[in-house]
């Protein structure tokens, strides 16, 4: 039963991939990916219930492991995947010129992507998690380059090289961690099992562990879009198909970040909270700074959304640096909220691109008047990302600030707030230009008009996002338990 819970997500996604590989993208297979996502989501719910009631599950001598954090992340994967895969048919339909092979490849890779991410969050062994995360890079490389344009290829190259390099650094850290663990008398299989590592953290050699943690944070940070190896993010997110951007921004970054949480859980007892806190603070504030200044003169709305992802990841990194239970609960809620909001934002940006035929902020004008529903959804996502209530990002940012001041990191929070203000101003400026600015000529009616059915998942997501900001009552025990894992 336990094994089934842990294997179902990976299995469902892999099976879907196999279906697409064999049958290709057809009318009857169009919703297989959505079905797989739904299965992942259902499994995540079951897992969440199981984990909060009976505690963590270990399978295959610790290679697979599910605790509240895993369940929470899997819940996120399932939800965002459902939104993204539901948007895929519309995306593929709007690119009529594509060949069947290209569609098949898209579908297969998306499913493999999901499988890899599910593996990453369900792995009990850091080595396995690493393999899964590197696998996401490989799988998404072709998704980023999916359109085959020069810029898409360029983005794919940068994405693959930078992420592989970054993740290699994480491997280096992992090797060092393994070294330290082996010398703390852990067996070969146990030496990368994070549950056992956390338990034996005090036995690890501090000198080696310091280096290991630094490389792990740097490496997983690269995949999470944190400075200094962040530069792939705006390129990849802006070039990838909209549903893939949604998945990358909404799930992939947090999955990488959850590994950072695992690492800090090992580092903090052994090295004291100060060490990881300093590293994460520097990375988080650096990311925020880079995102904020890059947003100021942004011209491309997909890049704008990508930098906004960086901004939020920076904030989450700062939350991880604070590390108190309130901060961890806050970043988990933030991950959930950001994932939903970004999924909606990227998907609707995809619709905007499909109807306006441009990614330039300047050339999209008076959207609120010309496409009210789409503009409303996009605006709602943008407002959520700007941190307005009732969306949950407000609650999580507020809790983050409270946790920061309570942990005597007031200056860090103050700096982050100022950078957030700059990012806010920039986003509001660009968003306002797209939605409200006068159209300088009689802008043509958008082509092709989208069916309302395409909007349904997005509106649902916005409502969920708002509901999460009002109450998290159904998942509050999961949230608290997950926050306890990282502590």
């Amino acid at each position, binding site marked *: 039963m336990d094994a089934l819970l842990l294997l179902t997500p990976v299995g469902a996604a892999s099976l879907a991939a196999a279906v697409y590989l064999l049958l290709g993208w057809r009318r009857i297979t169009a919703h297989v990916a959505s079905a797989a996502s739904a299965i992942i989501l259902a499994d995540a719910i079951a897992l969440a219930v199981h984990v909060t009631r009976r505690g963590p599950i270990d399978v295959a001598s610790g290679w697979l492991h599910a605790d509240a954090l895993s369940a929470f992340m899997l819940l996120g994967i399932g939800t965002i995947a459902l939104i993204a895969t539901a948007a895929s048919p519309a995306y593929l339909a709007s690119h009529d010129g594509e060949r069947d092979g290209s569609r098949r490849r898209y579908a297969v890779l998306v499913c493999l992507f999901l499988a890899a991410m599910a593996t990453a969050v369900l792995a009990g062994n850091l080595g396995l998690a690493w393999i899964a995360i590197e696998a996401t890079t490989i799988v998404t490389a072709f998704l980023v380059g999916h359109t085959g344009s020069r810029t898409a290829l360029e983005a794919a190259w940068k994405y693959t090289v930078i992420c592989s390099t970054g993740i290699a650094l994480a491997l280096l850290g992992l090797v060092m961690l393994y070294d330290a663990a082996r010398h703390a008398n852990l067996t070969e299989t146990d030496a990368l099992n994070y549950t056992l590592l956390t338990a034996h953290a005090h036995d690890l050699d501090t000198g080696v562990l310091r280096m290991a943690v630094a490389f792990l944070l740097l490496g997983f940070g690269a995949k999470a879009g944190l400075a200094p190896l962040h530069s792939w993010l705006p390129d990849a997110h802006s070039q990838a198909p909209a549903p893939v951007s949604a998945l990358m921004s909404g799930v992939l970054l947090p999955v990488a970040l959850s590994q950072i949480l695992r690492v800090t859980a090992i580092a903090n007892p052994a090295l004291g909270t100060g060490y990881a806190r300093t590293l994460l603070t520097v990375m988080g504030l650096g990311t925020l700074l880079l995102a904020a200044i890059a947003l*100021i*003169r942004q011209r491309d709305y997909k890049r704008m959304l990508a930098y906004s992802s960086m901004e939020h990841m920076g904030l989450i990194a700062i939350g991880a640096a604070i590390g108190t239970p309130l901060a961890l609960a806050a970043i988990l809620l933030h991950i959930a909220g950001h994932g939903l909001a970004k999924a909606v934002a990227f998907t609707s940006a995809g619709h905007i691109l499909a109807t306006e035929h441009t990614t330039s902020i300047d050339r999209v004008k008076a959207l609120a008047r010309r496409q009210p529903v789409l503009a409303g959804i996009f605006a709602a996502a943008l407002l959520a990302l700007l941190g*307005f209530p009732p969306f949950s990002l407000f609650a999580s940012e507020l809790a983050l600030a409270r946790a920061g001041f309570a942990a005597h990191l007031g200056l860090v929070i103050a700096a982050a707030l100022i950078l957030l203000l700059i990012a*806010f101003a920039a986003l509001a400026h660009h968003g306002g230009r797209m939605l409200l*600015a006068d159209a300088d000529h009689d802008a043509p009616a958008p082509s092709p008009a989208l069916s309302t059915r395409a909007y349904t998942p997005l509106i649902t997501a916005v409502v969920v996002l708002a509901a999460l900001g009002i109450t998290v009552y159904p998942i509050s025990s999961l949230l608290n338990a997950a926050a306890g894992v990282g502590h």
Partner: protein
Amino acid sequence: MSANPVAVALAVAGGFGLVASTGALVLPARIRVLATGGSAAASGTAGAAAGALALSGRTYAAHLPNLLPLGGVYLRVDALAGVFLAVTGAVFAVAAVYGIGYFRGHGSNRAVQAVWPLFALSLLLVPVAASVSTLLYAWELMALTSLLLVCAGGGEQARSAGLWYAVMTHLGLVALLAGLVWLAAAAHTETFAGIAAASGSISPAVKGAVFVLVLAGFGSKAGMVPLHAWLPRAHPEAPSPVSAVMSAAMVNLGVYGLVRVGFGLLHGGSRWWWLTALLLGALSAVYGIIQAAVETDLKRLLAYSTVENLGLILLAVGAAGILSDSGQPVLAALALAAGLLHVATHAAFKTLLFLGAGSVLHATGTRDLDELGGLRTRMPVTTGLFALGALGAAALPGGAGFPSEWLLLQSLIHARVISGAAALVMLPVAVGAIALSAGLAVATFVKALGTGFLAKPRSARAEHAHEASGPMLAGLGIAAVACLALALVPGTSAPALARAVNAAGLYVGGLPEYADRLTAIGSTLSPLLVVAVVVLLVLAIKALLKITARAPRRAAPLWDCGAPPLTARMEYTATSFAEPLQRVFDDVIAPESDLDVTQHDESEYLVARVAYSRAVPDRIEHRLYLPVVHTVRRAGRMATHVANGSVHRYLGYGFCAVIVLLVVLAAAR
């Protein structure tokens, strides 16, 4: 066990508000405006009733742990909250009634009608909040809903106003968030009750920093100079009923927050806090009214007048703090009561004025005073009611603004009892600011009324104006009644004010002792008597003239210097009316005027055409904000070097990080 009436009233307000909002989304156009307007008005009335109950001494507290993730909602209603609940609810109800007429013309915009009851509800939630998280949640909800309403019109102007508003209000939020969260962290609890109990043990330095942050945050919402830049842009952009709610209710919440945190949570603190508040209040009052005096856009003029009045209120709060610090709790209570009374009176006349301006905009399609004129004959009722509001805004006897400014001066008269040179230097400044703003307010509103409503129409749009519809006039009428009540019998509010001041925590003594004092001073002022005598005399003289007159009045032509006809182009416009004042305050407002004379082809001594244009840019805005904007833009240019597209550079960042890391780790060993 019976339910708490305050809770019931609040629940009713919330329920009707949500009904109004949903109704706007789902109802068919035919009944939508009436149904949503009706339930919005019911919601506002219930809110006002909750406030009135709180002012009569009832309290209510609740804790809802499952709402607002990671924080929980804490609610508490006391008399201080009651003042703001009552004012907000009443303004909302009046604006809702007015809106039934107003939105019928602009019926197509469902979104506005759906959002604006939510906006009003968020306003009602702010004074009820009793923890840091709850307050900030309500605060941002208010920011979001009002932002949507400001942007609702669409187009470039709404975009620009919305951007200013969004950024400034977020700046305020950042200050507020930092301040309040810091305070909560220092007190180890985030409920107001807990903070109030623990604030004695917090170090004065932290409290001082918190106060500065909170002053900036709440002050920016209250239009405190120099954080006012958003206000004259955003308020006029929103639909007029919403402008009224923003200008008459929303800005007050900045004052509420400052009073609640400054007196209730921090228990007064140092004198320099309140000196700062008083000085900024004085600055806002004078700067606001000078800008209003030279403004020609009717709604912007009213918005600047809001800056002025909120400045006066801030000044009153500052004076209360100083007096309290000097061991004069009774005088402090008096000053604060004056401030709170002014909150109510300002709300009354500003609602009336904004709604009146809305009727004008609705009837003529313009807000430019230079293009108006002659509305007296076309919109007689609106003109009369606007005049009543203008009387209040000018703080002349008979107007709503007079009693509160009078009460404030009363408290300052006794300021001699306080010690300390700095405060004594500041107080004359404060009195001067009140006096100057009162004088300029008279000129400002003579201009607004005289050039906007009297005289002859100066444009076709004003020429074809028509009287507002029934519901709009009803809204104006209710506001006018409130104005009159506050102007003529302000003394009746004394017990409620005393309770509110007590609840503010400024004075922790028994209620009766200074309630008597308040009532006594309240009765010293008898505007009713003075106004009644003046009115009687006027009527008597008129009657006398009529009796003694030999013939009825007859019309006569105007003096046209023998060169008829007189045209509307010869009239004094708002711009020309304000020109002398503009010259007087030349150094303060630095107007940009441009005179373009085109000579005749045949002789350079003949003038073919003269074009005069004038702009009064907000000087503080130019000096303070533009440099910041430029700096940020420069930083934005830097970003292009950071992300220049070179994959080598991108990898280099990582490489450098690794090297630095290894060096630091090696060095730190």
